[in-house]
């Protein structure tokens, strides 16, 4: 390790210790476990700053936070899956003794023995770890792939195709009582007749033109080309709006982290 790296590490450790002591001192009046609480807040602040340090360049503190995150999140999801899937769903249906051991209410049923099948398939899936018998893992994999494909076939056909098309065919003339009535009551209110009609037109024409843009079996020239160009405009508005929406989401996360640093850690804002 370089001498400069050691120096940076030493400074960080000293700053961490000072922060811990000061935070513990601050929390001692209100918290019972103030030493642990102070350590956790300081450590969370250290991890936050470590990740933010990536804005300068990739560095050991960022790598530390990144690798810690990989390990902790993998274990978190494993524990969550273990308790919520295996212990809550499977064990109460298979064994009264095990249910009692895990403090879960036993769920007796006439068809509970069928739940041994996914257990066997799950164990067969683990055969993937064996070089010699790895091919056996294809059976449970085939079950997963087949079932998911069957589920998706119906689900996507209904929700992403039929229902989307059905929702696109909206009335283009809403509460229409003639041209005179339309112009005499013309306004730009969001729930007014004009805006509602415009919205329905934009939805109908937008979906059609968007689909035409994605249709590559015909050359985009003439009327087809014009519709395709309108499709690009609509798509560009969508990409812009999605971009703005994503940026605002990330900014709000950043505000959350800065609030943590300045309020919970440093106590600079009340």
């Amino acid at each position, binding site marked *: 390790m370089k001498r400069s790296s050691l120096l940076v590490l030493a400074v960080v450790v000293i700053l961490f210790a000072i922060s811990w002591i000061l935070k513990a001192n601050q929390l001692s009046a209100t918290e019972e476990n103030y030493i642990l609480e102070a350590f956790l807040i300081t450590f969370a602040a250290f991890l936050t700053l470590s990740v933010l340090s990536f804005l300068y360049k990739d560095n050991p503190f960022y790598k530390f936070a990144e690798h810690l995150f990989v390990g902790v999140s993998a274990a978190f999801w494993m524990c969550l899956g*273990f308790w919520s899937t295996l212990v809550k769903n499977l064990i109460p249906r298979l064994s009264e003794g095990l249910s009692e051991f895990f403090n879960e209410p036993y769920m007796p049923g006439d068809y509970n023995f069928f739940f041994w099948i996914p257990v066997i398939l799950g164990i067969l899936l683990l055969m993937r770890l064996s070089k010699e018998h790895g091919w056996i893992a294809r059976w449970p994999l085939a079950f997963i792939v087949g079932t998911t494909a069957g589920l998706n076939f119906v689900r996507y056909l209904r929700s992403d195709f039929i229902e989307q098309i059905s929702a696109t065919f909206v009335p283009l003339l809403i509460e229409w009582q003639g041209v005179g009535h339309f112009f005499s009551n013309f306004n730009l209110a969001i729930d007014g007749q004009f805006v509602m009609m415009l919205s329905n037109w934009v939805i109908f024409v937008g979906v059609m033109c968007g689909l035409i843009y994605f249709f590559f079996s015909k050359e985009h020239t003439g009327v087809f080309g014009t519709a395709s160009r309108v499709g690009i405009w609509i798509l560009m508005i969508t990409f812009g709006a999605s971009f703005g929406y994503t940026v605002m989401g990330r900014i709000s996360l950043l505000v959350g982290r800065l609030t943590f640093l300045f309020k919970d850690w440093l106590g600079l804002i009340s």
Partner: protein
Amino acid sequence: MRRQLPFILVFLSGAFMVFQYFVPHESSEFVYEFLLDWLTIIGGFAMVLGIWSLIRVSYDKIQRKRENWGYSVITLAGLFSMIFFGITNWQDGFGFYILQADGLNNPMFVHFFDYILIPIQATMFSLLAFFIASAAYRAFRARSVIASLLLLAALIVMMRFNPLFGAWIEDVANWLMNVPNLAAQRAIVIGLGLGMVATALKIILGIERGYMGQG
């Protein structure tokens, strides 16, 4: 046998899931619910494969002292600590119990979640605000109609909660999100749905076999 049986299994399970939708009978729905539970349970076992793979890759890196192997020690330390706290619990302040159902309420497990997992995850996602803003600065130039539309839509949506512009900008931003955005999203979703249906059909009929791997 090694390859044919899985294809038969894919066809039978896939065809059943499609078929049961058209048979709204009690017994058909019962089997359907059963199969969904099975999927979740097998998924639980699949998680073990993922964890094992992470352990093996990290251990291999440490054993061979590959570049940055020290960070793999951090990964394994985080992994095993979290697993340990996730399957154990302290009760009444002194008793230590392994494999208790309230392992997820173990104070240390909750602390790891609150003070390690959440801060890193939220900060990593918030980092994207900087990168996305810098990318936008370079890419968003009003050089053509479509580029201007992109820029304008993004600006309106970003400024919608800005009190300086009044309530109208929020109305316009909401309209942009609910109308033109919806129209284009719908066109994309219809295309996506058709693609998913075609892929699912290819898998059930055994035309698409890439998921089975080699050998």
